[in-house]
Every structure is written in C-alpha cells, then in structure tokens.
C-alpha cells in the first residue's frame, strides 16, 4: 500500500460560502460510497480466456485476482490483448497478472482517490478495508457517477424543502396561520432585531393587542440576540396563530452549562463587544420567561439549545 502524501490537505477556506456543493462532496464522500461492490473477481487458477469472458459479460476492463479475500493481482484488458497476441490466453491468471497491485482504502475521501488516479494513471483500483480485505473496485467513472448522483440528490432535497415550505405556507394561510423562519448568524449584531421587526408588523396588521404584541416581540428579540451573542448560529421560528404566538429558537451550540444559573437575572457570559453595545445585562432569559405564557429551555452542554415560548392572544371580551 502506498501512501498518498502528494494529496493536498483540505484547504481551510477563509470564506466558507465560496465552497460549492461539489467541492464539499469530494471531501465528504468516501471511496466506499463510489466503488462497485461486491467486486467481480477471478481466482489465480482461472484462465485468461475465462477472465476475458468475465470482462465481456460484465462490461468491465479490469479484474482483481483474489485468494481468501485478499488481492493477489490484477488482470487488465491490455493483459488479455497481449495474451491473445502472444498466444498464452489459456494460461492461468497468476502466470501473467500484475502482482504488485496498488489498492485504495475504502475510507479514503474521493478527493484523495482522484489524486491517486492522477498519480498512477491507472483506470481502476481494487478497494480494500482496514484489514486489507478486498471489498470493491473503483474507476474514474464510478467517482463521476457518484458525484453526479449526490449532486442530484442534494438538488432534489433543496427543491423538496422549498416545495414543503411553500406547501406549509399555503395551508397555513387557510388556517390563518403565519409562519416565519429565519437563520440567525453568530456575531451578527448589525442585523439583530430584523426578525422581531417583521413579526411585529404582521401582528400590528392583525390588530393583535399591543401588550401581547410587545411581549412576543421581546421574546423574539431576546432569543435572537442570544443566538447572535452566545452561539455558533441558529434559527428562529415564529408561528402566529389566531389564539397564540409560538416562538422557537434553536441553535448549533455550545449549549448552556447551567440553565438555572443562566435564568438568574444579572448572570451573563457576554463578551466585551456585546456589553459595549448594551447587550449582556443577563436579563434576556428572565425577560423571555416573564413575557411568555409557556416557556421552556432545553439545553445540553456541548450540544444545542432550544427555547420554546408561547404567548396567548387575549380573547376580545367585548367592544373596546
């Protein structure tokens, strides 16, 4: 087994947004995702002629020769042509096969596999697992097909996601439900409040009681700023129903170490910049709780945090 020291390490992109899906895929996908398996193989005692028939039947141009699950050698289409030329097509494979075979490990990334193809100029590699057992075969075509397939799938997923959102929206409009979901970026102080702003105008347009409207806006604003200040980023979802406003804030971590302590007024781990801007009073969570009719914090240290809040809309008790 040869190492692939010439493969460049994953470049730490300064601007992650510039990395395309295809680029992500070549790093994410493994040789085992692209290889064909179980591999079509031959035994050392098989004649080159029977291997030629095998190739014809399966439309392949290379066959690993194995014994006890290990790769002994490789017979390629060129070997067959040579054998026909030189008249040893009825010899057993082990007499003419290539003995020093370079294999790829099944856990290699596709980007590494591509580099190995470039480096050795072979049309195919046997794939072995960590115990050197033959598990598959991979060609350049397999890599292309695999990438295309995954790209397509991602595209389908994106389309399906969009469609689901649109569908949810249509149904919701019938039920007089307003759904709004938006990503919240870590450290993005400049856009804090955009989501609660949008929510306020919907509530105002619906003539929702000003006190309820303010309480809901406070919960959304505090939840949004917490994601900005304290997390790696997350999402805020607002659902406005005829009887209540439901706010859910979820983030990517790092989680709250001690939720009881975090709920105490005045407790804050906000950094200097946040404090300079007037955040970090340690009153966000208590504010949210006070403003909510239902309030839950779910958090795991090293995990994610989920804030759930419901604000009931007051029933009109008569003409105002």
């Amino acid at each position, binding site marked *: 087994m040869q190492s692939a020291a010439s493969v460049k390490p994953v470049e730490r992109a300064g601007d992650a947004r510039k990395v395309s899906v295809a680029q992500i895929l070549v790093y994410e996908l493994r040789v085992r995702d692209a290889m064909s398996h179980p591999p079509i193989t031959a035994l050392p005692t098989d004649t080159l002629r029977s291997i030629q028939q095998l190739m014809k039947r399966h439309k392949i141009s290379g066959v690993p020769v194995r014994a006890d699950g290990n790769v002994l050698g490789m017979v390629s289409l060129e070997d067959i042509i040579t054998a026909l030329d030189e008249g040893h097509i009825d010899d057993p494979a082990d007499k003419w096969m290539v003995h020093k075979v370079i294999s790829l490990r099944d856990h290699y990334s596709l980007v590494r596999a591509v580099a190995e193809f470039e480096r050795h100029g072979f049309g195919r590699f046997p794939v072995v697992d960590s115990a050197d057992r033959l598990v598959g075969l991979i060609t350049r075509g397999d890599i292309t097909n695999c990438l295309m397939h995954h790209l397509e799938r991602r595209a389908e997923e994106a389309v399906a996601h969009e469609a689901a959102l649109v569908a949810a929206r249509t149904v919701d409009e019938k039920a007089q439900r307003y759904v709004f979901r938006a990503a919240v970026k870590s450290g993005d*102080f400049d856009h804090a409040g955009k989501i609660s702003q949008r929510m306020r105008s919907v509530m105002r347009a619906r003539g929702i009681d000003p006190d309820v409207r303010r309480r809901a806006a406070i919960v959304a604003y*505090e939840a949004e700023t917490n994601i900005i200040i304290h997390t790696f980023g997350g999402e805020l979802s607002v659902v406005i129903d005829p009887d209540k406003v439901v706010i859910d804030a979820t983030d990517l971590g790092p989680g709250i170490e001690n939720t009881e302590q975090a709920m105490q007024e005045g407790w804050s781990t906000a950094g200097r910049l946040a404090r300079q801007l*007037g955040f970090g009073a340690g009153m966000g969570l208590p504010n949210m709780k006070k403003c909510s009719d239902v309030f839950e914090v779910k958090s795991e240290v090293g995990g994610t945090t989920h804030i759930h809040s419901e604000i009931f809309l007051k029933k009109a008790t008569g003409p105002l």
Partner: protein
Amino acid sequence: MTPPTSFKLKTLVPAVKAELFTDASECEITGCYISDLLSDVLAHAKPGVLWATVQTHRNVISVACTKDIPAVLFVCGRKPEAEVIKEAEEAGVILLGTPLTAFAAAGRLWESGLHE
C-alpha cells in the same frame, strides 16, 4: 387613575438643549426612562416614554420599536451614524441628542413637568 399626561416632545427640546436628528414635530411622550442596557429597557421601560441612553448603534432602534418607544435621547453629546438615523426614520423612531449627562437631562425634564 388618570391616564399619563402626554407632552409634546418639541416643547421639551430647549430644556435639554437638544439637537434633532430626525423630525420630531408630531411626537408625544409620557415619561422618560434612562438605561444603557437593552434588556433592561425591554424589561422595565414603559411604552410611550423618551429613552435616554449613551448607546447609539442600530440595535437601539430595534429595542425602541419592540417596546413602542417613540423617541430616543442620546446623552453626553453622543451622535448616531447616518445609517442609524436613516433606519430610525424608516421605523418612525425620533432621535435627538443632548450635550447634558443623563442625570442633568433628567433633572431638566423633571423641572419641565415630566414626572413619569
């Protein structure tokens, strides 16, 4: 209980030597709240008050809107950036500034009859 008395913001401008960053002609306020902590304003300021603060960044506008605070007074000679003024105008929040400290400004407002 009588509803809080409203004051025309314009009539209070001279008392705090205020500079107007946006148009304030129609604005009325019912009291004043002083704080530089956004969450504190969200928790304790009453809607309809004039908010006095040293904070001048755009989150002040968001907080004012969230709390239905019609006007913000920047104290100690702080001035907002043009971006912030533009955002305030769009949101209908009035911005003004005073060279006075929050304490001095509050004293003058109190003397002018604003007691909430």
